[in-house]
């Protein structure tokens, strides 16, 4: 094989005490599509962010064409011809598509004025060259759909042909057809001997587009395989490090009487005629692609949003929460998808966060009983094995797994009858995942009705007693545990057409 274009040696990185990467050695050659896969929290994003200068490594070195280079900022990376498209967009919402694509490189006339006509032509040309049509370059980015924003983001990275292009979950928000166009683009870049680093958790996609695949697990490199010599089963074993039977606890609970019934619930433009029921001691999985309306249904059940029509019955009684407060008082808990954005108060302590939803129960005449608070919080900290077990510790100093346990502890303390879990294991390590699955199972056995929303297929299949599939705001179908298969769920969930 030719000399690698990129070598990363012994790369390590820690965030606030959590090791994200330990001594990773990684290399890739020019003109190759190299996929990086791994579970959430495996360190994929951190690795490529170190390469693109968005994150600083703690130790290790980066070599391009065999020569060590210093990459300490995105500017350094640009200078070396490294461009990145991240999961989170780096677009300026109120500026036009043109300005975003040409940022820092807007053409000027001889008099020093911005040459808008030339700019728009240039931006248009970049978009069309890479096969993205139908975007008006004069509109502000904030008015574009999410897939179109993703295209603008990609176009921005391709203003000049990069030596290394990093694509971090680029397909997550694209439709099937758009993904196909993206793949054509990747093949063209390959021919121009660009190295494409492709991060994705969709394994089918990875096998379709990548030449080689590197697997990361818990911040360490597990191995690199050639895609034609490997298969999904091998890759999953490498990613997870154990078989599915070891991860998901045995089901023992029996579903009891109906606790929650949703009848023809709709919210204009978001979801429509959603009906299902949830029983005591049952885990109902809700599967669907991003944007299928799962979270929005949950928000309406919780009073965070208002449905436009339909009914909710709680213990057989009509129930229409106006605010989350109503829902909490009625015994519903909602663990939200994005713990940083709306689950945790990062600037507050473990104690404050865990007791947040139970403050009124811990106080009399509004005065907190510190003794009660500490007792109850400490009991949960021990039950969930939150580390370190220091109540005063700020949650932003905890690892992702422990942060997620804090959110979970907050809702366990409420002792709800209905627990809605929206992506409860996102961004946590495998060990914590297993613990969280065990907790979910235990809760179900104690009679809690659980609605488990997840985009992780193995999680849905391993945990659910029943599975509800959502697609484009509708319930596309329902499976019993025995009927549910990976292919069946995906076929129903996929947008537009049945996937091959």
């Amino acid at each position, binding site marked *: 094989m030719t000399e690698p274009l990129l070598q990363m040696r012994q790369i390590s990185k820690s965030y606030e005490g959590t090791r994200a990467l330990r001594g990773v050695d990684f290399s890739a050659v020019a003109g190759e599509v190299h996929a990086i896969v791994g579970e959430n929290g495996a360190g994929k994003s951190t690795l490529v962010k170190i390469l693109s200068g968005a994150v600083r490594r703690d130790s290790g070195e980066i070599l391009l064409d065999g020569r060590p280079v210093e990459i300490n900022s995105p500017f350094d990376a640009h200078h070396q011809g490294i461009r990145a498209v991240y999961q989170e967009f780096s677009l300026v919402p109120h500026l036009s598509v043109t300005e975003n694509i040409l940022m820092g490189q807007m053409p000027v006339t001889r008099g020093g004025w911005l040459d808008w006509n030339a700019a728009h032509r240039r931006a248009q040309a970049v978009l069309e060259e890479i096969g993205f049509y139908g975007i008006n370059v004069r509109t502000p980015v904030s008015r574009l759909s999410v897939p179109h924003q993703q295209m603008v983001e990609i176009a921005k990275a391709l203003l000049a042909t990069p030596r290394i292009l990093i694509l971090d979950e680029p397909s997550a928000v694209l439709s099937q057809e758009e993904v196909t166009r993206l793949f054509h683009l990747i093949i063209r870049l390959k021919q121009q001997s660009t190295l494409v680093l492709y991060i994705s958790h969709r394994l089918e996609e990875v096998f379709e587009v990548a030449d080689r695949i590197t697997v990361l697990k818990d911040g360490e490199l597990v191995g690199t395989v050639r895609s034609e010599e490997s298969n999904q089963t091998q890759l999953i074993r490498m990613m997870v490090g154990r078989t599915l039977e070891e991860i998901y606890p045995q089901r023992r609970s029996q579903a009891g009487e109906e606790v929650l019934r949703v009848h023809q619930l709709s919210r204009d433009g978001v979801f429509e005629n959603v009906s299902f029921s949830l029983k005591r001691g049952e885990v109902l999985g809700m599967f669907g692609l991003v944007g299928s309306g799962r979270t929005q249904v949950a928000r309406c059940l*919780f009073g*965070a949003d208002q449905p436009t029509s339909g009914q909710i019955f709680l213990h057989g009684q009509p129930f229409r929460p106006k*605010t*989350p*407060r109503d*829902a*909490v*008082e009625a015994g519903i808990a*909602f663990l*939200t998808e994005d713990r940083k*954005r*709306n*689950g*945790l*108060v*990062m*600037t*507050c302590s473990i104690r*404050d*966060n865990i*007791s*947040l*939803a139970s*403050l*009124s129960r*811990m*106080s009399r005449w*509004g*005065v*907190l009983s*510190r*003794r009660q608070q*500490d*007792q*109850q919080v*400490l*009991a949960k900290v*021990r*039950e969930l094995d939150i580390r370190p*077990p*220091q109540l*005063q510790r*700020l949650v932003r100093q905890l690892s992702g797994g422990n942060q997620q346990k804090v959110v979970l502890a*907050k809702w366990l303390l409420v*002792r709800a009858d209905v627990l809605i879990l929206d992506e409860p294991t996102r961004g946590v390590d495998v060990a914590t995942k297993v613990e969280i699955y065990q907790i979910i199972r235990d809760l179900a056995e104690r009679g809690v009705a659980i609605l488990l929303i997840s985009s992780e297929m193995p999680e849905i299949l391993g945990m659910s007693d029943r599975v509800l599939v959502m697609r484009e705001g509708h319930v596309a179908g329902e499976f019993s545990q025995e009927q549910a298969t990976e292919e069946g769920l995906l076929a129903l969930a996929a947008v537009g057409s049945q996937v091959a």
Partner: protein
Amino acid sequence: MRNVTQTSPSRVASLKERLRAGGSSRRLYETLRHHWADYGVIVAFIVLVIITASTSDVFFTERNISNLLRQIVPNGLISLGMLVVILTGGIDLSVGSIVALAGILSAGLQDDIPLALAILIALAAGVVAGAVNGVLIARFKLAPFIVTLATLGAIRGLVYVYSDTPQSPTNPAFRRILGGSVGGIAGSLAVATVIMVICYPIIWFFLNRTSAGRAIFAIGGNEEAVRLAGINVERHILAAYIISGLCSAMAGVLLAARLGIAQPSLGSGYELDAIAAAVIGGAILGGGGGSVPGTFGGVLVLGLINNLLNLYNVQSYYQQILKGVIIVFAVLARRKQQ
């Protein structure tokens, strides 16, 4: 619902013991690191006192100390309210105008109605002004900066409408009691100082030991998370602005009593000193940090600077420059700590 998972107090205590035993020196270090900002203020305070005491023989006189403690009262009260507002992630620019409103009402009304009632109305005016801020911010989701900038102007206008000339308090009891001193061993300790000092533990207790206080802390860190925890965020934000309005009104009344006159321009620019005191004391603009002891330290440091430079007859322009420098350093120190 009854508490099912009762943990016995003794078990909790023994666990606490073990936690403490497992790395007490580390804990101390963590605590120190965590509270750097609070201690930073104390260090600044001590340094200032030493400098002043060693260079001026007037500083440690009873007269000067009691003067100093009297002078910091308005900012001491306003900063306390400001802290509560900043903790929610907001800001209250209207405090100076509320000081004037309460000051001029308490001084002007006592001619016609009983003194106690006049003071009550002045304080109520502060509560109402705070409530207006709070409703516009919490209920109508307007930016705190804009809302309180608007009320800063509007309330000042209202004050001039009420009286464009200074109001002199006519009831002698007003000056004698609220502007006077506590007798006995405390000597010349001002009544106003005592009132301010009492407010600090009250607000500390409110913020740290009540469910509403903890919610206010949390709102500044992540409003949406608090809302989704089933807490009425609007009500808590409203409460914060009412507290700020009330604190400012108290400052206005006490100021009028001390000065013996209430100018319609009373309290202009006070919002800056209050924000500065809170920030020096570790508050983070935008929410998510700040403490009552820290704010008290900030008030003292600012008061000392004024006092010190006055003793040396330094022009007040230099005081402003020095204050600016100190604020920047306080914020930089915090940044470094993180």
